[in-house]
């Protein structure tokens, strides 16, 4: 069957093109900034200024393929295998803790290495958790307001994943999943009293975890006055703030940032927003925040249009993964929350979070189709 151009265009417009535009906008800006932030370092380390840039292009291509797959797939495929995704994610997390594929950096093993590629199972865990929670809330609507059947299972499931993350240890990842659980419980209809008391409980246990580990304690509280501990735990934040501060309204110009040259190591990773602030100024940061805002807006619009509860909560969860990532990352870069390794969705260098982000956007696009395939 031959598809005419007009039909193809019509089919394309069936998707939420505003969301797609925002994602492409973020990814393009990310590509430019990765080149700017990594060029000099890459030239020194790999003898090629574009070494990380081309890898990022490769990740983007892979990510886009995943986006197209997720956007065109039958949602039933994802929904039917919810427990398989969960088991796979948990299995991958376990592999990071006990396996030769795991790579350890800075005392934490959060990555699996397969040949030339590294992969962070946390990203898979986020997606699997969203599928599980949306399945749970959609199918147990009449039970959600009870405690033992309606509230405990999602808590236990998330808790199990968080437990594995804490073994790596990845405190930030556990916070991320908890935030995801919290938001999805809110839209899933959990009683506020359960949520509030669970929230209190989580805060207390988090506080205990922090107080019991001097490393974590220092990291968590250094953000309050990073300058006091500028040579150790506050170092990156201090450099990040200098970068943001010297950017002013319009920034120093693309490629003109100085912090990435020595002071802010690995600027292309989690602290890339600081480079954007330094080089593109308030305007550049605002552009990113606006695009993330567009993702939030489209997520809400797509969500509320869904007729099936399962679709609705899934859409919300996928959007949440992107938005929580954006908020946590900016919070860290600007010193508003304790530091943790969270990449900026679509912008930071790295394959795992990029592909995962594109997958989330793909699912949102899939659900955004006005006429279902």
């Amino acid at each position, binding site marked *: 069957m031959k598809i005419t151009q007009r039909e193809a265009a019509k089919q394309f417009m069936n998707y939420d093109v505003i969301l797609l535009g925002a994602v492409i906008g973020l990814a393009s800006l990310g590509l430019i900034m990765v080149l700017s932030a990594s060029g*000099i370092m890459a*030239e*020194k380390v790999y003898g090629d200024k574009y070494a990380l840039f081309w890898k990022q292009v490769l990740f983007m291509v892979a990510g886009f393929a995943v986006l197209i797959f997720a956007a065109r797939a039958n949602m039933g495929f994802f929904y039917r295998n919810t427990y398989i995704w969960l088991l796979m994610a948990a299995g991958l997390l376990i592999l990071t803790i006990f396996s030769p594929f795991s790579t350890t950096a800075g005392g934490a093993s959060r990555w699996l290495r397969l040949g030339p590629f590294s992969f962070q199972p946390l990203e898979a865990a986020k997606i699997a958790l969203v599928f599980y929670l949306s399945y749970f809330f959609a199918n147990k609507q009449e039970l959600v307001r009870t405690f033992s059947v309606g509230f405990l299972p999602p808590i236990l499931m998330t808790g199990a994943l968080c437990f594995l993350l804490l073994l790596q240890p990845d405190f930030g990842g556990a916070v991320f999943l908890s935030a995801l659980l919290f938001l999805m419980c809110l839209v899933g209809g959990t009683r506020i009293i359960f949520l509030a008391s669970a929230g209190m409980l989580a805060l207390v246990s988090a506080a205990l975890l922090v107080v019991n580990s001097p490393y974590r304690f220092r990291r968590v509280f250094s953000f309050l006055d990073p*300058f006091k501990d*500028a*040579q*150790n735990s506050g*170092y990156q934040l*201090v*450099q990040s703030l*200098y970068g943001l501060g*010297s950017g*002013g309204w319009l920034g*120093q110009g693309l*490629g003109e940032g*100085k912090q990435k*040259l*020595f*002071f802010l190591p690995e600027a292309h990773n989690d602290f890339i927003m600081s480079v954007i602030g330094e080089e593109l100024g308030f305007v550049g940061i605002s552009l990113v925040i606006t695009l993330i805002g567009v993702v939030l807006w489209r997520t809400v619009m797509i969500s509320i249009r869904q007729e099936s509860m399962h679709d609705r909560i899934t859409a919300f969860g996928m959007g949440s993964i992107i938005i929580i990532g954006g908020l946590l990352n900016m919070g860290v870069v600007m010193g508003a929350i304790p530091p943790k390794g969270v990449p900026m969705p679509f912008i930071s260098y790295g394959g795992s979070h990029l592909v995962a982000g594109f997958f989330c956007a793909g699912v949102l696009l899939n659900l955004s189709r006005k006429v279902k395939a």
Partner: protein
Amino acid sequence: MREFIHGDQLRGHTAVVLGAGSSGIAAARLLVRLGATVRLLERSESVAASVPTDQGFEVRGGQHRPEDFQGATLVVLSPGIPRAKVAPLLPEGAQVVSELELASWFVSEPIIAVTGTNGKTTTTTLIGRILERNGRSVFVGGNIGTPLSDYVTGEERADVLVLEVSSFQLQNSPSFHPHVAVLLNFSANHLDYHETMEEYLDAKLSMFGHMDARDLAVAPLSMKEELEGRSFTRANRVYFVAGRRFECPGLPGEHNRENMEAAFLACRHLGLSEDDVRRGIEGFSSLPHRLEAVAEHRDITFVDDSKSTTIDSMIAALKSQDRPVRLLAGGVFKGGDLGAVLPHIRERVRGIYLFGKSREIFEGAWSGCGLEIHWDPTLEEAVFRAASEARPGECVLLSPATASFDLFANYKERGKAFQRAVREWVEGTA
């Protein structure tokens, strides 16, 4: 004005500066301002001992040892110290940069950088003068005069920075990119420092590779094919030949016509017209007997720096030469630490020719330099000896570091005698 230097920025870092020349000391000062723990290493004990100790950094003299580099995350190399020489001593992950690179991290003003084998100082000074005469506030420095680090830590701010940059500095400047970069010419030189011609050219060109479409590259037309073949820059490019549009008696010779043309193209990029530049050039001359290029014969240049009566001015004269130097010195020594010149002698001097008084003082201080030290009773004889031993591409420099009244009435007479002797030798060998 944005503030770029913060006292916390390098807190907890250990930085090592190699070489206690003016740029090394300036870099050490800048690093101290940034909050780093700074160690300044200097091979010559006497030079190390002459560095003031109250500036917040530690000075270590003598051979470099691995423990001198312990914990260093940043290493600043002074010009003339090959990176390969210290590489085995460096801790893993230490970043090695030139003083120019370090200082450029804290600069937001537009930079005009001048490099090349010959004529750098003249062209740099000329561009500075043109801009100044057209109402811009200018900082002129870099390899000549004030190091960029001193500008950065200083109070005064300029609209434009005009810098003379050497290939030594460019080689360890992975991000330095000026607004306008001028390559005056390129010939075999400094091959003792750079392994090959190719490496030397790469060093010069690295700066051009960092520039982008808003910037301007100025280079000689004779190098156009070679440069374009290497696609050496993304910046706009203009190529110059010796032109006739500017006349200046103080800047004689074809090479100076090239220098003026290059200066014009650089200034035009900053919005000056041909007339503005003409006004700026008018009346320019190098001061008589102060690094005055008096002749060029068989590709040997002769420089009269008779006004140099101190050790500092001798060091400045040596640093201003981008060619290997045959050094003429001698006269009534006024005191000071001649040992401070030794690193510069090792770096640039190919022969030492003493004349007149103070022979023993010079010989005593410089006996360890590894060069034969000649002595003649008169300046003329010393000039002839130096000129006949000089090879093409070298420079015969009179920079006596002494008062002149053993043989002459004053430094002017000494300079004139030098110039006479040079003329005589040139005519005799023409």
